[in-house]
């Protein structure tokens, strides 16, 4: 007992030197500690308790690091790694800027040329039309695949199977050469002579039509699977609750299931759309003057192959970047309800940084100065 009290008495002066605030706490412990064994000679049980509480108080004070300054762990290798990468990036940037064979002058000259801009608009038109039609058709295909009808399920499955297993290039050429397979296209009752509409295939399927048809059908096959996956990710209980409330089927799909499915659909769907932007370049085989074909026509004439490919590349980068921004905000919109608080937009983050961060550092230095 006295043995437990002695270290207390010894440890008591220590915190007193460590911090001024802890001194009043330890002072009674220091006096009670030696007083106990001196008076009672270590007999009463009550003394044991008081000595022990005094002991714990003394120990607590000994480990009081309240006034110590925190020093975060250093990560030297992180700095080394950063330096190496920075050096590499700098090297690449330097070579891009200084190697005359990149011919940046030529790139700049063609970047906003009228023919390039026209090609760019065609690319955007193709992407928008076949993307929209592809996703609408994909939504219908996904619903067919999820329906209870075995016929609809197998038609939808077969569609995806065919269009996902044939190269897009082949599909394009096939649509463009449809006139070779079927001279006329007509709408009427099968196995009768009744015709509502009839036309020459070659007049009906222009380059543009073949391009849109090929891209749309191909896109539909992929987006059907994406949308189906999204719909499957929504909890069955949601449909059950909506059904129990008497909400009609179409409304259940569009108001209850689809908005929730969007969270799963959007990241992959944007992947697809971004792929489609560059995928449109494949319609050069139809000699359709979108961005990539236009660039090819120009460099075949001027022989400035790499700079003109760079022009096309830079435009694709611009489109993809713009789409990525859209993606961020659309995903954010659909995440309401799924997260407790919406993440800040980059603009809000910047504002927050400017309003809190910059003045805050000024304040801390001031505080330190006063201390």
């Amino acid at each position, binding site marked *: 007992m006295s043995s437990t009290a002695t270290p207390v008495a010894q440890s008591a002066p220590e915190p007193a030197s460590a911090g001024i605030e802890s001194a009043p706490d330890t002072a009674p412990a220091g006096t009670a500690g030696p007083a106990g064994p001196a008076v009672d000679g270590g007999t009463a049980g009550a003394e044991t308790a008081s000595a022990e509480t005094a002991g714990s108080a003394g120990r607590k004070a000994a480990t009081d690091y309240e006034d110590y300054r925190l020093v975060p762990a250093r990560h030297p290798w992180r700095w080394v790694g950063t330096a190496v990468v920075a050096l590499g990036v700098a090297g690449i940037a330097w070579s891009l800027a200084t190697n005359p064979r990149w011919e940046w002058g030529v790139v700049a000259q063609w970047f906003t040329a009228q023919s390039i801009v026209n090609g760019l608009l065609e690319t955007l038109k193709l992407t928008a039309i076949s993307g929209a039609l592809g996703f609408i058709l994909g939504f219908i295909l996904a619903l067919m695949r999820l329906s209870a009808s075995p016929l609809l399920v197998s038609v939808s499955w077969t569609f995806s199977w065919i269009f996902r297993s044939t190269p897009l290039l082949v599909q394009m050429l096939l649509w463009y050469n449809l006139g070779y397979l079927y001279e006329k296209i007509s709408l009427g009752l099968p196995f009768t002579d009744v015709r509502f509409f009839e036309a020459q295939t070659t007049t009906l399927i222009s380059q543009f039509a073949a391009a849109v048809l090929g891209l749309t059908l191909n896109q539909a096959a992929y987006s059907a699977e994406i949308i189906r996956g999204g719909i499957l990710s929504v909890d069955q209980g949601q449909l059950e609750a909506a059904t129990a409330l008497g909400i009609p089927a179409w409304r259940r799909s569009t108001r209850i299931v689809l908005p929730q499915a969007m969270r799963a659909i959007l990241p992959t769907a944007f992947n697809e759309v971004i792929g489609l932007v560059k995928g449109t370049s494949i319609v050069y085989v139809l000699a359709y003057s979108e961005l990539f074909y236009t660039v090819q026509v120009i460099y075949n004439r001027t022989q400035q192959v790499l700079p003109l490919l760079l022009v096309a590349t830079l435009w694709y980068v611009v489109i993809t970047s713009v789409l990525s921004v859209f993606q961020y905000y659309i995903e954010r919109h*659909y995440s309401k*309800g799924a997260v407790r608080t919406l993440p800040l937009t980059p603009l809000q983050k910047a504002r927050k940084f400017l309003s809190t961060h910059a003045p805050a550092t000024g304040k801390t230095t001031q505080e330190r100065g006063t201390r």
Partner: protein
Amino acid sequence: MSTVASSTPTAPAARDAETTRGLVEITKVRKSFGVTEVLKGITLTVEPGGVAVIVGPSGSGKSTLLRTINHLEKVDAGFIAIDGTLVGYEVRGRRLHELPEKEILKQRTEIGMVFQNFNLFPHLTALENVTEAPVVAPRAGKPRSSRAEARARGLELLDRVGLKDRAGAYPRQLSGGQQQRVAIARALALDPKILLFDEPTSALDPELVNEVLDVIRGLAKSGTTLIIVTHEMGFARDVADTVVFMDQGQIVEQGTPQEIFTNPREERTRSFFSKVIEPAFNI
């Protein structure tokens, strides 16, 4: 409203005068999932404005029975009628033809349902959850509500469950008990004759159970017919005018809470309650 009537189950006539709706008649209902028969000929009548509490071990078919009442689960045999009208079917000659989806939806608007896992629509606010169905669901003999009407009624209902100030909150921003109370408001928005509760407190933390049970207690006095599947025996004793004990797809016995809890006739009932109720007192 009819506080006196609800506390005395022997006076359905007095209650009829005020409500005259919500009579549920379940007759010889059978249902199998694959080879397992989960409902083996259930016959049960719940009087208008009555409160029936169904208890029993898990897997006894309680939830399935509840789900057949609003045709979420189709029965294999037997039939269910509400105020004398068949649910999900119509009689043509000597046959029962399943109704088209639209007609079934109309019937469902008269039967509210509250789920174990709340099933609130997470992308809609509490108020939007409550106002969705009245605006879009086809109603039997009633026009759809306008947005403004639904909103006013929605706020009133949220107020009734004590959540008017959380009308703009998304379900994920609410506690489990609050979510379930919103779900109850949502079920009430269609002004149903009957309310079905499928283990409404089973997914809740113990300290949140009572806020939900209090809301249901309030409803028991409102004249709406309530059919409640629950494991909360104290609550069942409190609120029920009929307690139904189910086991293995059959109704073993039914009666007043007094009869079932304190003086059960069947051995199976007695052994179930000995397992369920006594451990609660042994804490």
